[in-house]
């Protein structure tokens, strides 16, 4: 444990006895977690959220380890199952505010079916997907988000598959909020999480992260600074982009911004509306 005479604004939302944590130098996850917690902190100071009601659920992977670091009700569950776990908890106690915080492999790969159906139901949860383009914790295997032709340890001759643009795919379903940012958009992450937490229904925020240790090595940009600079050029923010404008291409553009923002009834509103009287 690092003892310091200095304090940090989000110290009280962290299990400081676990710092320094498992993430590599240059990793983007800590930055994304930081701005997520800042959003909570600001909402709390504005009297809009009670941290005791937040349930922070993660799956397996580098990002999944975040549950063990936050001082909130938290669960580090099975690979791909953070969404159903959070949904179940909310079914038991609808006053909970579930935040699913997990990686691209966990959410869009093995957990893809749960993502799809939580979105279809406009389920009242916030999903933050940290996308580092690879299975980093396990050494750099292929992810559904890995760019075409890029090396991974399970596609040593290059990835023959086109990747999924998860945020764009979810636009086919009537969810209340979809946004994508990169780890180079610090205040955007915080503002977006803050806004999304005050909304009902299904909310999805993808944050493009940097993984110099694994993904950086795979694409030949091992230096964290260079990887940040590269991502900064690729991650282009557009205001209200149309479906056709949104790109997910490491070689040209990964479009960022708010893709969807509406206020349809969430699952629990609709459940209440249906009631228990037979029509």
């Amino acid at each position, binding site marked *: 444990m690092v003892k310091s005479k200095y304090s940090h604004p989000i110290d009280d939302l962290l299990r400081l006895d*676990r710092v320094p944590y498992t993430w590599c130098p240059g990793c983007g996850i800590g930055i994304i977690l930081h701005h997520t917690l800042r959003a909570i902190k600001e909402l709390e100071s504005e009297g809009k959220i009670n941290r005791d009601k937040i349930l922070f659920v993660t799956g397996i992977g580098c990002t999944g380890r975040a549950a063990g670091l936050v*001082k909130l009700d938290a*669960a580090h*569950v099975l690979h791909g199952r953070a969404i*159903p776990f959070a*949904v*179940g908890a909310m*079914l*038991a106690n609808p006053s909970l505010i579930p935040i699913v915080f997990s990686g691209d492999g966990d959410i869009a790969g093995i957990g893809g079916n749960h993502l799809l159906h939580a979105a279809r139901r406009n389920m009242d949860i916030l999903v933050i997907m940290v996308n580092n383009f690879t299975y980093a914790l396990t050494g750099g295997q292929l992810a559904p988000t890995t760019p075409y032709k890029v090396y991974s340890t399970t596609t040593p001759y290059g990835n023959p598959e086109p990747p999924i643009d998860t945020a764009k795919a979810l636009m086919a379903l009537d969810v209340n909020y979809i946004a994508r940012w990169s780890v180079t958009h610090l205040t955007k992450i915080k503002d977006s999480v803050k806004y999304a937490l005050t909304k009902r229904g299904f909310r999805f925020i993808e944050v493009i992260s940097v993984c110099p240790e694994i993904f950086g090595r795979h694409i030949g940009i091992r230096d964290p600074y260079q990887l940040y600079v590269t991502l900064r050029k690729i991650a282009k923010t557009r205001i209200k982009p149309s479906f056709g404008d949104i790109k997910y291409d490491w070689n040209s553009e990964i479009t960022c911004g708010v893709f969807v923002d509406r206020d349809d009834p969430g699952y629990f509103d609709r459940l209440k509306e249906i009631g228990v009287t037979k029509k």
Partner: protein
Amino acid sequence: MRVEFLTSNETCAEGAMAAGLNVYIGYPITPSSDLFEYLAEKLPKRGGIVYQGEDEIASINALVGASLAGAKAMTATSGPGLSLMQEGIGLAIMLEAPLVIVSDMRTGPSTGIATQIGQGDIMQARWGSHGPYNLVVYAPASAQEAFDYTVKAFNTAVRLRVPVIVLMDAILAHTREKVVIKEPGEIEVVEFKKTKKHPGEYKPYEYDPDDLVPPIAFFGEGYKVLHESLAHDERGYYKTSPEVYRPLVERFIEKVNRNRKYVVASKDYYADDAETLFIAIGSVARSTLALVRDLRESGLKVGLFRPISIWPFDEDRFIKMARRVKKIIVAEMNQGQLVWIIKKILWDNKLFNVDVYSLPLLLPDLPSPDEIYDEIKSRGWKI
């Protein structure tokens, strides 16, 4: 208390509601879907919630979440669904989430014959998830027992913080018979053992030394509960050391063993002077009991031992009988699973002078008493 004419699927649902079911999460599968449908109509009117997951994997994981958020939670499925739930059962073990899984066994392997009886899930109910652990499996044999042992399953799950499986079969699930449905005031209903500690000093996996079960704090109560699927210490922090791992998994095993007396259940029929003892569960036990009665009428000294808790097994009671009998015939609609348990218990107790016959009934229909007897005769066994 009221007398009804219900199927075992329906009495399971009634038992669950009597035990305080709040959240049912399931995925339709024959022959358990009508349990789901029954609850879908009744539970919301009692203030509970019924939810259909996108698959069995979603259902079991949502169930673990619901349980740790304070619900008495249940699902129902059948063999293929139980297979899909196995990883989630391991999660429930690791997070010590009390929940009840009803599984109506059908013919396998794979999709098998969806509507027909099987008993091939005795081993997967116990050993289906990876790693060392213990859980409880009840096998009722009537609509009344389906009610009684669903109540018991909830009480055991809540008391020990383990998943409990109620293992029925396709015939039993749809057998409609007279049952006495008791109300919550007329049965024992165990409630969660809540922590008495303050949020600052609470540790989610700190257990009571007497029963080895950690008192619980639910999500949303300000306790900053950390639940960890990785091997963990009492704070929920991931640890890889043998000093943490070994006591953790030993406790998972031991907490069921230590509460064995509360958990186990069995019944026997004509066993006092029996020379040949039949062993069977569920619907097969009912056919076998009819055969035992027929054979008794013809003067043969036969009896039936029917384990209700299969895991853990009512070993003490069984051993007393096993010491007296010459022959044991284990009748089951699978390759021979229950017989493994019997042989292990006899071996562990050094009972080598009793002959054990395995009678696997690999049929898609429940055999009649005569058909079971024909199977025995065709093998040349003498009773």
